[in-house]
Every structure is written in C-alpha cells, then in structure tokens.
C-alpha cells in the first residue's frame, strides 16, 4: 500500500498523510480480525497451505509456464477462505497421486484439486462439498452419441491416473463382463491434457471427465470434442475439499463455505470460471470422424507447454544432479584409488556399492518419504519434489560416477605422477595440472553417455508425465511409469 502511494506524484507531506491513512486502514482490518470466526487448526502461523494438481481446468490449472502459480475456481475459493481467516494463501502443486500422501504428511492443510467426494476417500479424510458436478464420456466430434454405457463394451477409454474414474469404470466393466460382453479397455495417463490428446489423435475411443473440465476443453479446442453420454453414476455429484480428519476443522470449513455461498462469492466465481455453463455440452454434429492424421494434435502435443516444461525439467535435473554427482565423486574416487587402507575408504566403498545396488526408485522414495520423518527440516516447503529428485539422483549418480572416475584415474600412467613429483610439483598441482586433465579426457565420453542415457531413460518420463506440476513427484504414478 505504501509503495503504491509512493508512485503517486504527491508532495512529501501528502504522501506521509496517505501512508498514515493506509496504516489506519490496516489497523482497522486487524481490529476486524479479533471479531472474525475462529481459525481452523490446519491454518498454521497465519498461512493456509493447499495441495493441488493444476491439471484440471477450470478448477485448478496453469496458464503459461509458471507452474508455481496455478489458477482456477479452486484457487480462488482457497483465496476467499484464506481471506476469511485472515491468512496468507500458499499453494503447493504436485502430481495427482501425491495429493493425499502430502495431506497425510502435513505438507498442506487442505487438498483442493477438483476432487470428487467419495465415501472411500472419506474413510481416511474429512470432506466438505463446495461444487456440484457430473461425469461425462467424451469422444471426438462426429462420434455418434450413446444411449447406454453398455455401448462402450470393448472400446478403449482414457482416464487420468490416480483418479476415481478407474474404479468406477472397473465397476461398469464388472457388469459388462457379467452380461457376457467384453470389458472396456482402460488406459491411464498422468495428466488430463494427455488424456484429451489420446482422443484427438484417435488412440482411444473416448475419455472420461467432468462436466466443468469439458467446458474448458471445448472452449480451447473449439468443436473437436463432443459428449457421448452423461451417465448417472452413484457417488459422483460433488466436488469436495479434503482435510485431515478433525471434526472441529470440518465444521469450521463447512460454515466458511456456506458463508461464501450466502454472500454470493461462490456464485461470482462460478460465473468467472464458467463452472456452471453447460451450454456446450451437447450439440454433436453428425459428421463422420475424419480418419486422417491430425498433424495439429501431434504438434500441439510436441509444442505444448507441458511437454516443453517437462523437457526443461528433464535437462535441468540431469545436468544439475550430474554436476553435483561429479563434484562429490572426484574426491571419493581419489581416496578409493589410493593404496592405503583406512576407515574412510571402507565407508566410501560401502556408500558406492549401496547406492549402485539399491534401485533408483527406492532411493527416490526414501529421500521423499523417509528423510522428512527423520529430519523435520525436510518437511518444510523449500524441500520441493524437484530438490528431492536432485538430491536423490545426485547421490545415486555419484556412485556411478565414482566408478567412471576410478577407471579414468587408473588409466593415467603412474609415470605421470612420478614425473610430476620429480619436478617438485605439489600434490595439488600434480592432481590439477597433470592427472586431472588426462583423467578428464578419459572420463568425458562415458560421463556424457551416462548423462544422456540418464536423461533419456529415467527423467524424460518422470518429467514428461509430471509436466504441469512442480517437478518430479516421486511417490506418484510418474515414477511408476518410469520404472516399469
């Protein structure tokens, strides 16, 4: 507020007066706080932290490149809640399947991510409804509408992994099989964006989504999609905010939502994000689907921000973790190559064989899920999935790099060290001026090869599939995709 005033071409005195006025307003606000409703316990130190998977427009999604600033209906509702509780809003983005583990691990106070209210989820968490919704089955434009879910027998259906659609479709499959029909082939993809793409490129017959989501896609893709059927699915009627089980918190959240409903905040937001606009749901043109290759769909996937973002993360994770790995591995390799026996050497040998033998997935999981339990400092927000990945992969890769370095150091003729020390060069110079430059040349090709394979095999999938979130969430389906 004060900085805003300082931009105005006012006299010094007037500016001071204005600043004072600002402080008065702020104090009045603080006064109001004293009378405000009690703040739920998940608001900690004046911060409301929510976990969200910003891949479900218009509820929660990322526009442009900045993954750390998702927007959408959910984010605005969260902001309205934070305002009510005089709290600052902090939004953590992650892969969908990481949301509930993060809620349990107290990384956030609420999960707000366009998630359906289901009795199954309510076994572990409390839920508060804030928006109605319905499930839709969507196909390419030109696909005839369906009259019954039975018509999907034997067809391939794309769904976002980690969502409850999978279970629901599983139930429908059970009835199909019981009726002697082939089941639907359910294919999972980590982001909604990719789910839609599978339909556009014709890999799957249809995808399952929510009405609110579909509206957004329709707006983006024009008339390329159309609703095949809106089945009446039990337990599929509401979006809910999830919190750790706590009756008092649930009641306070419920009353805050009711208040936002009453004062018109929610309905204003629904209009802003077109959440209730159902006008584009129908209107299928009965034109036969073009079977031609859709270049646009391919290139839009290739140049999508999600893909580019994933590629960028891939490269930076590969490079950063290797720079760290190389830095760690050089002194380790020197110690291991020295002829003397020492305790340090035994410890380092253990380090190298442990991290070479243990599966990378296990190490990722260990760093992300176990380390925060031993050291509370890793529970804080700065410890992002991105950092966790860098840490885990640096340690893991350093173990491989040690082997490359050791081989390179042994490949340097021992006469080099002899010749250098006969000239009176210091240990430091012997290493930096004589041995390292030669070992570096030997180690370079295998190192580059390793970085390349690493980026190609592990990370491209980790990061492509988590693209659109804040990095590589490791207790999620993304690693699942990578390592199986």
């Amino acid at each position: 507020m004060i900085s805003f005033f300082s931009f105005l071409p006012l006299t010094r005195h007037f500016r001071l007066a204005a600043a004072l006025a600002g402080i008065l307003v702020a104090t009045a606000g603080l006064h109001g706080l004293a009378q405000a409703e009690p703040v739920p316990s998940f608001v900690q130190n004046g911060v409301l932290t929510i976990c969200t998977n910003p891949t479900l427009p218009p509820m929660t999604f990322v526009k442009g490149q900045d993954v750390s600033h998702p927007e959408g209906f959910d984010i605005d509702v969260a902001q309205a809640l934070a305002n009510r509780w005089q709290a600052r809003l902090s939004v953590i983005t992650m892969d969908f399947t990481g949301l509930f583990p993060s809620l349990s691990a107290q990384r956030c106070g609420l999960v707000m991510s366009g998630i359906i209210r289901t009795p199954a989820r309510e076994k572990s968490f409390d839920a508060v409804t804030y928006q109605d919704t319905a499930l839709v089955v969507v196909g390419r434009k030109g696909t005839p509408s369906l009259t019954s879910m039975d018509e999907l027998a034997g067809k391939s259906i794309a769904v976002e992994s980690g969502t409850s659609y999978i279970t629901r479709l599983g139930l429908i499959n059970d009835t199909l099989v019981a009726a002697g029909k082939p089941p639907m082939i359910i294919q999972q993809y980590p982001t909604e964006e990719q789910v839609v793409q599978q339909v556009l490129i014709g890999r799957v017959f249809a995808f399952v989504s929510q009405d609110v989501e579909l509206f957004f896609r329709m707006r983006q893709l024009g008339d390329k999609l159309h609703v095949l059927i809106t089945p009446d699915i039990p337990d599929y009627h509401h979006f809910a905010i999830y919190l750790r089980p706590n009756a008092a918190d649930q009641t306070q959240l419920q009353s805050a939502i009711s208040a936002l409903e009453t004062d018109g905040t929610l309905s204003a937001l629904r209009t802003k994000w077109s959440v209730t606009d159902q006008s584009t749901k129908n209107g299928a043109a009965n034109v036969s689907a073009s079977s031609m290759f859709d270049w646009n769909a391919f290139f839009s996937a290739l140049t999508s921000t999600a893909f580019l973002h994933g590629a960028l993360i891939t490269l930076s994770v590969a490079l950063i973790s290797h720079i760290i790995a190389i830095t760690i591995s050089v002194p380790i390799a020197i110690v291991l190559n020295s002829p003397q026996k020492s305790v340090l050497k035994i410890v380092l040998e253990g380090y190298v064989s442990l991290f070479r033998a243990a599966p990378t997935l296990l190490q990722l999981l260990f760093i992300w899920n176990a380390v925060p339990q031993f050291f509370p400092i890793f529970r804080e927000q700065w410890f992002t999935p991105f950092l966790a990945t860098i840490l885990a992969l640096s340690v893991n890769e350093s173990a491989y790099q040690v082997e490359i370095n050791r081989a390179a150091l042994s490949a340097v003729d021992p006469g080099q060290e002899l010749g250098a020390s006969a000239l009176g060069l210091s240990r430091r110079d012997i290493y930096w001026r004589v041995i390292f430059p030669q070992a570096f040349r030997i180690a370079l090709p295998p190192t580059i090869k390793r970085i390349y394979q690493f980026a190609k095999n592990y990370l491209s999938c980790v990061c492509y599939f988590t693209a659109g979130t804040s990095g590589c969430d490791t207790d999620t389906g993304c690693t699942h995709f990578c390592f199986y």
Partner: protein
Amino acid sequence: MQHETTDLPMISVRGMSKLFGEFVALDRVDFDVSRGEKIVVLGPSGSGKSTLIRTLNRIEPHDIGTLTINGKLINEKTDPIQLRCMVGMVFQNYNLFPHLSVLENCILAPMRVKHMSRIEATALARRYLEQVGIPDQADKYPIQLSGGQQQRVAIARALCMQPQVMLFDEPTAALDPEAIVGVVSIMDELAEQGITTVCVTHEMAFSRRIADRIIFMDQGKIVEITPPETFFTTPKTDRAQNFLNQMLRY
C-alpha cells in the same frame, strides 16, 4: 648460494637401506659423490639401481641410514619440493605430460614451483630446448615426437629447474640405436658442463668415457666402487666380472 665448504661431498650416503615389505631392495649402501662428479651405476636387472637413485630425490624414501645432499640431512622432515628443485631426474619412459606442449612441459614446474613469470620460464625453456637440439619442436605435443626427441624434452624439462644434481635412470634403454647416439651426445655435453650426475645406464662406451667412478650393484648391495678404467679391465669381484662378460658378449 656458494658454500665455503666446496670440498664437502654433494651426496653422502651412509648405511642406507630400503625395504619393500620384507624384501630388502637396498642393503646398507655407503658412498659419496663429490661436486661435479659423474657416477655411473651398473648392475644386473633387479639389483636395485633404480631404487638407489630414487632414494636420492626421495621419490622412494629410504628406511634406514642417512642421506645428506649438499650438506643437508634428507629425511621425512625435508621439504620434498626444495629437494627436487636441487635434484632433477630423467626417466627411462620420459614421463612427459601428453596433454601439454613441449614448451608447456618445460615451463610448468619453473612457474608453479619456482614462481617464475611465464616470460622468464619460456626464455629459460627455449635455451635448454636449444641445448638439447630441438628448438623448433617447442609447440608440438609429445606424441608428435620420436622417442629420442621425447627424451631430449625430458632432459630439457629437468634442466629448466636448474638442479645441482641430475639423476638419469636408463635414459636410453627405450631408444633405438640412432636415437641413443643423439641422447648420449647431449649427456656428454652436460657432463662437460660439470653438473653432478648419477646415471644408471647400460651404455658401456658412454660409461667409460664420462664416468669418474662406477658403482656396481648386485642384490641390493654395492659390490664395488671403482674408476672405469679399472672396472672395465680388472674388476675386483667375480660378480662384476660375470656381469661384464654378459654385457660384452654381444
């Protein structure tokens, strides 16, 4: 740096032994080398010649006995860098740095150890490269040179540190006959300049020509120390006689 005690030996070795585990590589050796003296070390393979000259610049530290160089007692307290500025060494396999050019090989130690400026070090290096007969190879890399040329670079590199003692460990053993002639002529020249030299070699003619004394070793022991004319004509021991018979048979 001129001492008044110039009659003091440059190198003085007393009761020096070197062990590799249980194996006695040097067995209580005693000898002196005067200033400017040329010593050639002879002996069958495995007799400890390399080990002996490596103890002189402490690349192999001795275990028992005393070593004095230029009046200074050399032991674990000696600054190895100071010692190696004083004692230069040339190896059988040259041990040039393959990632550096000939000139860079020569100026690395003067700059890093003696803190000479690049200009100073380069001028010095060019002088010694000229002396060893390869002034025009300064910008080449070691692998672009023949074995003989590489050994000349190694000699120039050692001379650039301007040592008071030069150690040679079979400098011609890896060279073909033509190259040997060239390197030997450079060593002849160095000998004339009066630098104290301890040289392990199998070049009998060269030994005869330049050596002031011959040290003959066998099984880690010094068997005899004699002037070359005596050694090559009437060696004192049977072992030396046997060695010479073998060497001269070819």
